[in-house]
């Protein structure tokens, strides 16, 4: 699904002290499965995920998605890709504070779809109770918010879900619940999880280890 070729991302390009967040490497990701990208802080794992998901443009190299180099496509096409084929779970949930849990999920749904039913179903599957659907993020626990964020990421039935430290603000139990949900979703889709916490990646299909802006190790079929 993804073929990453000679990807590099350099910050502070105009200064003498260029900072290589990604130092030029190749990587191929499968069509389905749970892929963990792990590494210490500053290793470039989040930058890699954002480059793959079109939120960032790499300085060099290409990201080929289903045969198209998505680093070269126009903004409109990138937005469409993010709206229709990609889903995002961010480290902080970034839910809209004035909207209910349900509305927060619906906002990402494609227009014309039976969004409310789908959103309810997603929230139910993720373990939220009906009475919590109408609550605003401030009235939900961190774990509940993160589950709403996952439902938001999945409402448009994306082919790829990008999750950046999705369990960072969760306790151990909630963290494993979230990972279980992502694992379930990855059965017929691709889920990329970026984390520095190795303990949550026990069930991944592929592990990409990063160090200092490059891939130090790739392990497949771990599950």
């Amino acid at each position: 699904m993804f073929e990453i070729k000679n990807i590099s991302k350099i910050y502070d390009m105009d200064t003498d002290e260029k900072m290589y967040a990604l130092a030029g490497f190749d990587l191929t990701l499968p069509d389905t499965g749970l892929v963990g990208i792990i590494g210490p802080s500053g290793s470039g794992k989040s930058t890699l995920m954002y480059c793959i998901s079109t939120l960032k443009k790499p300085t060099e190299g290409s990201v080929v998605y289903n045969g198209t180099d998505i680093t070269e496509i126009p903004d409109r096409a990138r937005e469409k890709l993010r709206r229709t084929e990609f889903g995002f779970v961010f480290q902080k949930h970034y839910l809209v504070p004035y909207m209910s849990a349900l509305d927060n999920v619906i906002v990402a749904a494609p227009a014309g779809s039976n969004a409310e039913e789908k959103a309810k179903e997603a929230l139910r599957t993720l373990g939220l109770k009906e009475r919590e659907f109408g609550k605003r993020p401030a009235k939900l626990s961190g774990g509940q918010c993160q589950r709403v964020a996952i439902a938001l990421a999945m409402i448009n039935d994306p082919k790829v879900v990008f999750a950046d430290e999705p369990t960072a603000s969760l306790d151990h139990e909630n963290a494993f619940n979230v990972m279980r949900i992502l694992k379930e979703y990855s059965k017929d889709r691709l889920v990329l999880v970026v984390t520095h916490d190795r303990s949550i990646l026990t069930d991944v299909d592929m592990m990409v280890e990063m160090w200092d802006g490059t891939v130090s190790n790739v392990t497949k079929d771990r599950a």
Partner: protein
Amino acid sequence: MKNRLSATKYIKNNKRTCFVLILALALTFMAMYVIAYIMSATVESVKPITLELPKHIALANVTYGSLGVNRADYPDQESYENAGSQARDEFCKRLESDPDVEKVYFIQTLMAGYVGVVGGVGFNFPLVPPEQVPEVLAHVGAKLTEGRLPADDGEVLIDERILRNGGMKVGDWFQKDSYGEVFKIVGAIRSDEMACVGTPRGYYNSGWFITVLCNENSCDFTKLAAKYGVTPSEADGDVIDDIVTNRDLYEHDVADSVEATVAVIMLVTMIFLSISMIVAYVSFMRNRVNEYCLYVSIGYSRSEIYGMIMREMMLMFTAGILLGAAFSVGCIKVLEGIVIEPKGLVAKVFMKDQLLRILGAFVMIIGVLQIPVIVSVYKIKTIDLIED
């Protein structure tokens, strides 16, 4: 792809914040409209006196010189006065022969004051012998609504609205503060022109005037006089109080000054509203940066977010305008009851021009608000940039 960025969700879920904004718009609308309404009370109220009454009664004080009688041609003052008086009487007869003139008197007049909400006007009305009162009333189409016709010297019939305006009633002394206990109000009359008439008493007056009971064809005194060989001119000391001078008074001293006042008030209101709306909108959108970043990150374009902000803005402006219109109607009803009606004034309730001006002002404010909106939309980042 259609989007789900609803304009109503923010408004529904932030009722207090949005209501404050809508209320500010509504109060601005109301202020702009009600001020124009109050000012219109001055303009509309004096319309009958300045634009209608002079179509029926024209007054002029023409000097002997303008009538062709010069002091130098006479040995003494008395013979000069006699010649002048005779020339004036002959001139009056010539005017009366005009097919568009009903009557011409050389009589005393009395000034009635009429005070609007802002400023006011004074106008002269004829003092005629009691037997001539009915013909003046008939000429201006006035009906006696209370009291009786004057039967003696120093009795006046006053228009109902002028009575209310001056806080007078039948039986009172007319404008006692100005004239003392000289002219008794013996009746109230009603006419579209707000005409008044009375009988003289001694030499209490606001001047002697050639008083022409005219119609629309003969109400321009200068033109009428010219037909009969007299060319009155203010430069020569002639005083003309006809449709031309009154129209000029209405257009320049009343309508234009009121118009200018309303325009200044609107401009000041608009400047303050624009500034406060920009400040409100900047903070409004600053509070929603993360929301906009989320939308961009999950694939909404900046133009879709701009569209949502504009739809929210349009909804709030529409609500503000509707609420402002409702407030204005309420406020006008109250003002009508406590100021306009009791003061015998007339005001325009539906002012299409003012409505268009207010809508234009609101459109301009929406235009000004594009600055903070476009700047904010341009500044939207994706979440990865926030987290960097």
